[in-house]
């Protein structure tokens, strides 16, 4: 049997980076949009 453990680890590192990276991007974008929404809603209240 070939010794290929390092390749397996590399494969799952790539997988983890892809998944965690995407989840993180979703969270950060949602947080940024919520902040924008709060600011805009405050501005709207002040205008009214």
């Amino acid at each position, binding site marked *: *049997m070939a010794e*290929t453990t390092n*390749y397996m680890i590399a*494969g799952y590192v790539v997988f983890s980076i892809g998944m965690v990276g*995407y989840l993180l991007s979703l969270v950060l974008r*949602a947080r940024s*949009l919520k902040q*924008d929404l709060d600011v*805009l809603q405050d501005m709207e209240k002040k205008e009214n």
Partner: protein
Amino acid sequence: METKPRLLNVLDWVSLVLFVIATGMVFFYAPTEAIMGQVQRVFYFHVATAWVGLLGFIAAGLAGIGYLRTNNLKWDNASLAAVEISLIFFAVAIVMGSIWARPSWGTYWTWEPRLTTATVTELIYAAYLLLRQGLEDPERRARFSAVYTILGCISVPITFVSIRLFRTIHPVVIGNADAAAQGGFSMTPAMFQTMMFSVVTFSVIFVALLWHRIRLGNLADKVEQLRLKLAQ
């Protein structure tokens, strides 16, 4: 953002539990393949991520049809969400496959039919995101995107059947393998169960992510509308 629906909460937890079980099966239930050794364990999530990638591209095409039939921008949001998620999963599948190929084929990359069609599919949808950014009018962008995703769908079955139509070194795990295939293996029942469980798990994860991404798109629309309202 609207309150997170209870069903989405349930879906998140189900996804997490399924993912933990699938990971456990990959590392502790599926046997080590006799010739390739440990790297064969990459195969389970490689297949599952590739499946989700192609599934999402088809979902995007269906959402495109939904938009053309209704002119409702919610379909455009769904289509964009599906493409974005699929691009990530499909890119991960391609890189994982490439890592598996190194000890199996002796090279990270070769322009054989499956790798070539998969790369073309990935590029088609990467271009979709870039082209969307060039269109400012939401209606026009949605119409253009809908037609693009419907046409883009053609690449999905071509990618899927490429290893069955052409002589290739990419193994066909389910069905008859070409004599030229390298790195193919006979799946034991435990291997097959692990693969199928991973595919189901990633399909559930895809649905959960799609729902989250659609909600993000709705929030972005809300912010944009408020911004336009205040600018007037």
